[in-house]
């Protein structure tokens, strides 16, 4: 023990940081900020450290070459002892990091921590969020499989829509005319050098400001932030009822961080590593690429936007979102901090959470994508074929063979791109069915050129049988009038 003390003294005599470190550790924080709500920032930091460590471990084996990356991932998964576990830790650590950073952001937003004098802390935090998402995306590319390959194509297609310089951005992003070795190498450089370097620097600035400006005091309804008086009030608060950060508040941070690390390890152990999926061979097109969890909402938005809205929303939306986040502390830098007095703030969070949650949920089962093999693998439920005429059954065959099933479900089986057809005959008359099949419309291709008249007749006669029992078929009332016998016409129309 005495030896350790002596070594410590020897080092401190030269480094001269002991005093600063001690003061930093013991700086007083308001008593009620030693709270379980104030643990997300430190947890994000701890997961970031985990990511650095596991990332370096993966780099011992991983080969950032388009031709070999996928093979080296297979070696990591199967050829190296516990390679799969390190991959799983890194993959799950990434998911946890994004989740905790988002939670941290919601917490500091609801607690008004972005207000004076912590505006810059918030702005640096916004950039930390962007970098975290940047790490998640570039990391997904390094898992160089089919999803990564086509995900890059998606990124390139979005980037190409930037006016004038779009194609140049695509070439810069891909490192050449196509997605290939140069693309993977530059994403490797971004993921391993550029973004982590920036992250470390920005985290340092972020932490420095937290220490210098003091942790955000617990928001009390009625305790209003004013630039003239806030700093004075904060110092009085910490003087009056402050506790030293170590050990007064830090034990909760330590407990929560350990819990998060345990959760990452448990997920890694139980669920294992992510992928890789199929080989990144662009000539294998039997694939339905999809992004990782935290980009699923974007995948859904891209499917649901009307075509004309897509480019403006993709290019202007992020600028507006970033602008709002960056300007927030300047527009509402003073005033109430408590969420109890900030209904718009609470509603905004709820709205964003519900929207992101809903889009993510949709992204997990992609109702907008045709089910590519429904026509050959999902059969028509037998109840739709019982007691049907030969023509109607012929129509059911056309329904399968022409891939109608890829987009239309019967009894919840099949694609969900178009409406389910269980009760289509109750909604559409024969004429409407024929018109829809031949001309398409809405979101349906026209089949006029791809169906013979006989096939169309059979298909429509099958569709006309699709209605729930006891429900009448759709009726064209104008046709009834036209086909009425002459004698039934009202007398007033007669001369």
């Amino acid at each position, binding site marked *: 023990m005495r030896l350790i003390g002596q070594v410590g003294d020897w080092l401190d005599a030269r480094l001269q940081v002991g005093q600063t470190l001690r003061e930093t550790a013991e700086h007083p924080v308001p008593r009620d900020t030693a709270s379980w709500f104030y643990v997300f920032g430190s947890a994000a930091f701890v997961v970031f450290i985990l990511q650095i460590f596991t990332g370096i471990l993966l780099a011992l084996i991983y080969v950032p070459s*388009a031709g070999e990356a996928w093979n080296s991932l297979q070696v990591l998964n199967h050829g190296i002892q516990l390679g799969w576990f390190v991959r799983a830790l890194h993959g799950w650590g990434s998911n946890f990091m994004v989740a905790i950073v988002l939670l941290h952001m919601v917490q500091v937003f609801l607690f008004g921590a972005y207000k004076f004098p912590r505006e810059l802390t918030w702005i640096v935090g916004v950039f930390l969020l962007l970098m975290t998402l940047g790490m998640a995306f570039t990391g997904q590319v390094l898992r160089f499989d089919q999803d990564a390959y086509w995900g890059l194509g998606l990124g*390139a297609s979005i980037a190409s829509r930037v006016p004038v310089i*779009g*194609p140049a951005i*695509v*070439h810069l992003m891909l490192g050449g005319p196509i997605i290939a070795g140069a693309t993977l190498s530059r994403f490797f450089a971004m993921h391993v050098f550029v973004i982590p370097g920036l992250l470390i620097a920005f985290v340092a600035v972020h932490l420095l400001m937290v220490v210098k400006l003091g942790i955000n005091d617990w928001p009390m309804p009625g305790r209003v932030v004013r630039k003239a008086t806030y700093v004075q009030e904060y110092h009085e608060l910490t003087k009056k009822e402050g506790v030293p950060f170590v050990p007064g508040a830090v034990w909760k941070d330590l407990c929560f961080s350990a819990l998060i690390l345990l959760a990452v390890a448990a997920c890694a152990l139980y669920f294992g590593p992510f992928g890789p999926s199929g080989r990144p061979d662009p000539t294998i097109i039997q694939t339905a690429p999809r992004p990782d969890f935290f980009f699923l909402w974007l995948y859904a938005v891209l499917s649901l936007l009307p*075509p*004309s809205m897509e480019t403006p929303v993709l290019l202007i939306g992020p600028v507006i979102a970033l602008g709002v986040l960056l300007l927030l502390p300047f527009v509402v830098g003073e005033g109430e901090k408590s969420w109890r007095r900030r209904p718009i703030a609470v509603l905004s969070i709820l709205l964003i959470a519900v929207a992101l949650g809903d889009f993510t949920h949709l992204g997990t089962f992609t109702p907008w994508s045709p089910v590519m093999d429904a026509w050959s693998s999902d059969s028509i439920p037998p109840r739709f074929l019982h007691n049907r005429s030969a023509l109607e059954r012929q129509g059911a065959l056309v329904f399968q063979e022409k891939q109608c099933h890829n987009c239309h479900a019967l009894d919840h089986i099949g694609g969900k791109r178009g409406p389910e057809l269980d009760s289509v005959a109750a909604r559409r008359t024969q004429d409407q069915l024929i018109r829809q099949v031949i001309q*398409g419309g809405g979101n349906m291709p026209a089949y006029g*050129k791809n169906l013979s008249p006989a096939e169309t007749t059979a298909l429509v006669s099958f569709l006309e049988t699709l209605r729930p029992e006891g429900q009448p078929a759709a009726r064209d009332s104008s046709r009834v009038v036209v086909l009425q016998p002459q004698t039934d016409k009202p007398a007033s129309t007669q001369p």
Partner: protein
Amino acid sequence: MTNPDDLSRRTLLMKMGVLFNGIIAAVLAVPILRYILSPVAQERDQGFQSWLPLGELNQFPAGQTRFASYRNPVVNPWDGKTGDIACWVRNVDGKTFQVFAINCAHLGCPVRWFPQSNLFMCPCHGGAYYQDGSRASGPPERGLFEYHYKIEEGKLFIKAGEMPTPGQKTQSSLVTLETRRCV
């Protein structure tokens, strides 16, 4: 004691030092920027867009649409399989061809051909195209990208070398499809 003259002389020297570093940085920036921007400048390189054989004509029967692939003209030895690019070849009537890029005109996912319904369908966001490549439904704003082709010595060649993306308005290797809308 430092006299004011001495101070200003040292300040001047420091400023000259800063200026000197600035000049060196500007000079170094030129090659560094050219290095970074080399993928953009690559377009002017020879062979960036080349005529590439897709195979014998008899591999593409009249009236049918078949899968084909080619090796990109610009590749590095470590590109592996990523240098192989797929496309769809439609033999319209034995004499006329259409060669479509594999990438959906929406966001670049690989479209699949369904000969039964004569449609190209995209697995990502549900885009669909008719057999002539024109847009049928879904989020794409336009039809499939189409390569220029030529027939020489019984072989089908296309001009290719770059991944088609929706932002490229005037691309030399691609035919514009705007005028060919299916009714």
